[in-house]
């Protein structure tokens, strides 16, 4: 099932992606 098929799945995916990208960004910036 594609999480983007539901609004809830879309929002949860967005927050999960935000956490992952923030972690990667912190590693790149050396923060």
């Amino acid at each position, binding site marked *: 099932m594609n999480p983007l098929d539901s*609004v809830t799945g*879309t929002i949860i995916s967005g927050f999960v992606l935000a956490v992952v990208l923030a972690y990667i960004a912190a590693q790149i910036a050396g923060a």
Partner: protein
Amino acid sequence: MEALLPYERWLHFLAGITWIGLLYYFNLIQGQALAAAAADKDGPGGAAITKYVAPRALAYFRWAALVTWLSGAAYLGKNFTGAFTLGIGQHSSYLTNIGFGAWLGTIMLFNVWVLIWPNQKKILGFVQATDEEKAKGKRIAFLASRTNTMLSIPLLMFMGGASHGLPFFAG
């Protein structure tokens, strides 16, 4: 050009709110409204939405997306390259964070103009398309729109976080 920065940022916010506000309208309201209208056999149907509302909403949506990107690019100015290379090797949290936001916004602009709008033209009947093309286009436009809704969450985190700090960054 430094004197223009506050105006470029202001325009970026206004256009961005218009764009993302309409994106949320499509994903949280219009899609569900059309589904409810289709399911309501005794109701008026969703034809008025697709004829009178959707084209106007899509016009503001796609042009606001372009203005958002252009005003953002103008605002980045001399930081444009540094942002799009994510500030790698520069130890700049600002460049890395605004760069992630810029990349997410660029992907979203691509989705609007390359995946959503051309397929919406088929769905709404602005261009000729077979029923099969319309069905395929509907799925592509839907997934691109949902992808943009998903991407808007980290996008706004990075845009705000670049100047005001990220929740996951130290200090």
